[in-house]
């Protein structure tokens, strides 16, 4: 048996090698948990599987695209410590995206782009790297250019407050997988929000320059704030079926929480007009800003060049 090449065994043995068989050595971490362990992955008969899949795409794409934006800070942040903090947050969101895109593929396989026969690329990777811009369902708020550190903090505060409110509602989803993802995500997003709120306050009450930059940043991201709470017909269906959360229903909660941070920071809500629809559509309809095409080109180029690649 030991001479048979077994990929799973190789995979399992990674940490064994580090620990030298001594599990009491904690330095490399122990007890990693599978967030979906013991979760029933069947889809209830009375749930519209196609709508569930589209809904998972929306939440998954929000996390995937924002994760990419945050990961652009890797090696570029103001400090090593912030570099790692932002990378950690990006990885949390990437983990959520992976689970959500895998759930979308399981609920409706017809969404997954067709790759060459024999390609080892898993369904969630095919969704991430082989869909075109118009098939992405993320809100436009997450695709804006990376900007400076103030833009990152203003956007992270708003996004994590919004997503945390969604995930807290989603924990009661009738879909057991969405519920498990939401429970996991809630812990992660609570930290993201805390991190962003502290920095928001620090920049707002810091130097004249940090405050000036933060106000510019807030005005820059604010035009796409309203879109976060626009209910798409898929979200409405998912909410009616008890599997999803209507984003409009979390608006007041998010606005109050943001208001508290703005208040202690001495910052007013920007008075800028909301970015309108494009061809009667917004991000959830696959209508995106100019930044999205460039983002996807960078994110997808290597995977698309090797559709049968093993990573």
């Amino acid at each position, binding site marked *: 048996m030991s001479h048979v090449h077994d990929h799973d065994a190789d995979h399992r043995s990674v940490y064994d090698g580090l620990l030298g068989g001594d599990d*009491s050595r*904690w*330095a*490399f*971490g*122990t*007890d*990693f948990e599978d967030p979906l362990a013991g979760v029933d992955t069947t889809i209830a008969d009375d749930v519209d599987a196609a709508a569930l899949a589209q809904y998972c795409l929306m939440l998954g794409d929000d996390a995937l695209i924002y994760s990419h934006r945050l990961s652009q800070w890797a090696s570029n942040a103001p*400090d*090593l*410590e912030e570099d*790692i*903090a932002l990378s*950690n947050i990006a990885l949390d969101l990437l983990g959520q995206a992976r689970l959500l895109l895998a759930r979308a593929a399981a609920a409706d396989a017809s969404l997954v782009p067709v790759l060459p026969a024999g390609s080892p690329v898993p369904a969630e990777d095919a969704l991430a790297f082989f869909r075109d811009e118009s098939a992405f369902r993320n809100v436009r708020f997450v695709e804006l250019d990376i900007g400076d550190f103030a833009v990152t903090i203003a956007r992270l505060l708003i996004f994590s407050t919004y997503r945390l409110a969604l995930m807290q509602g989603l924990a009661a989803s009738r879909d057991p997988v969405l519920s498990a993802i939401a429970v996991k995500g809630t812990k992660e997003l609570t930290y993201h929000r*805390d*991190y962003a709120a*502290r920095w928001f306050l*620090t920049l707002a009450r810091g*130097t004249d320059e940090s405050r000036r930059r933060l106000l510019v940043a807030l005005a820059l991201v604010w035009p796409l704030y309203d879109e976060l709470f626009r209910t798409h017909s898929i979200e409405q269906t998912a909410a009616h079926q008890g599997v999803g959360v209507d984003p409009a229903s979390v608006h007041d909660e998010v606005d109050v929480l943001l208001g508290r941070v703005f208040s202690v920071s001495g910052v007013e809500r920007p008075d800028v007009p909301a970015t309108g629809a494009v061809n009667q559509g917004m991000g959830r309809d696959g209508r995106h800003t100019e930044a999205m095409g460039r983002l996807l080109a960078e994110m997808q180029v290597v995977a698309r060049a090797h559709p049968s690649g093993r990573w």
Partner: protein
Amino acid sequence: MTDGVRDEWPLYEIFVRGKRGLNHVHVGSLHAADDEMALLHARDVYTRRNEGVSIWAVRADLIVASSPDEKDPLFAPAGDKVYRHPTFYVIPDDVPHM
């Protein structure tokens, strides 16, 4: 820098207690603007591989340390006093953490 703004954040030493560890162990140092930020940075830098359940952060300039010059007078006298070790007792098998 002017206006009381320092060009570098103070240094903190970080101690982490692991899930199976009984005591906090020094894992490294980092820069942070204040105590709260030091804890957040420690969480991000030193517990991202699921290492810890508790963190201590201490301003490095608050630590009183012995000097290498004093090594001999401080530590050498203990070198030959084997009778200070409890090696002449039999420790029962069910006494943990010895």
